[in-house]
């Protein structure tokens, strides 16, 4: 598996093991076809055809024994949705973001799925930026600084994005059985938290001829909160509505937030490098 390397010599923070787990939780507080949330905050996830996870107390992840035959799927879910649940259970703030760094300063690309976060992060990583994490971006506050904790460096890319990045999609592994996205694993950019210099909210407007960058201020920088937070709805169901709101407003008070609207054409990727660089130098 391509999990981030462990740091430090203390006891592990998360225990991961295989065991039989039930199809459903008894008397869940909330349930959907994919997730049961127990009254104790434990979460059972049914992801993919064969894969179930039981996530307890932000410290324990149990993978159903039947999923062991589908390790690529298990890995994808572990570094994605399962990590997100763990962070919520541990009362951490997680952005729905891919994050890169340069000169020991990070920039996080946030936005709903399909806005090109992973693609832009991969493009920048191929041009001297260090990849810190994809899709799940853990934030910590250290005194008056906001920092990104490095996470998974597995980028999940659509085939056209992989081609735009000079990777033949058929040469890359799939992250999920039957899913067209491909996985590009890059070196870990850092093992230590990196100060966050900017948050860039990605949008797509196909009417544009060239990408557009603008600084956001006030409520516009954090609303709608669902566009910035990882699995905000799940977090609310885990009782985290208030701390997520407080964490996000605190972050936006300390870190400049920008809006970057792409044309939707992969040909605009090179132009985005200059815009991101301008944010990092002037932001």
């Amino acid at each position, binding site marked *: 598996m391509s999990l981030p390397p462990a740091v430090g010599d203390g006891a592990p923070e998360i225990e991961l093991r295989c065991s039989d787990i039930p199809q459903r939780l008894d008397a869940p507080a909330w349930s959907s076809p994919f997730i049961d949330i127990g009254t104790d905050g434990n979460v059972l996830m049914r992801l993919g055809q064969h894969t179930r996870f039981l996530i307890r107390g932000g410290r324990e992840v149990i993978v159903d024994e039947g999923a062991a035959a589908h390790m690529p799927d298990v890995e994808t879910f572990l570094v994605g949705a399962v990590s997100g649940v763990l962070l919520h259970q541990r009362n951490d703030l997680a952005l729905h973001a891919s994050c890169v760094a340069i000169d020991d300063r990070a920039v996080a690309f946030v936005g709903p799925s399909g806005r090109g976060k992973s693609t832009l992060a991969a493009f920048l990583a191929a041009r001297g930026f260090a990849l810190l994490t994809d899709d799940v971006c853990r934030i910590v506050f250290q005194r008056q600084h906001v920092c990104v904790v490095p996470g998974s460096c597995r980028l999940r890319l659509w085939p056209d994005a992989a081609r735009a990045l000079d990777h033949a999609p058929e040469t890359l592994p799939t992250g999920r059985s039957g899913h067209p996205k491909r996985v590009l694993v890059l070196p870990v950019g850092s093992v230590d938290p990196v100060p966050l210099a900017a948050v860039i909210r990605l949008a797509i407007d196909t009417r544009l001829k060239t990408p557009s960058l603008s600084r956001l*201020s*006030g*409520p*516009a*920088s*954090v*609303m*709608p*909160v669902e566009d910035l937070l990882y699995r905000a709805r799940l977090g*609310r169901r885990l009782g985290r*509505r*208030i701390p997520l*709101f*407080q964490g996000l*407003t*605190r972050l*936006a*008070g300390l870190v400049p937030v920008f809006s970057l609207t792409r044309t939707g054409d992969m040909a605009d990727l090179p132009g985005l490098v200059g815009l991101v660089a301008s944010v990092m130098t002037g932001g």
Partner: protein
Amino acid sequence: MNSTLRFELDTPVRWHPEHIAGEVNGLVVVLGMSQGKHVGFDAMATHVWHRLEWTQTVSELCDGLAKDFDGDLVVIRQDVIDLLTQLQELKLVEIGVGDLSA
């Protein structure tokens, strides 16, 4: 409290206690716990919101704003009533007769 009360100048108002507010770049963002909605305020609404921490009549609120901004009281009263109406719909303010200071 009568949640459908029309605003009169002597109507007491204050912010609803079931909310969480934060500030970003000097402007208020409120999470209303009643409806679970996030609302962002511009500069004027932010100023009004800060004043709504204490129970006061609509008239007192408007008089204070007119003094702060050296503005036309008639215009301020209409703007404030419009704002309070929106906040009432979002259940972000408490409005009514009687003692709201408890």
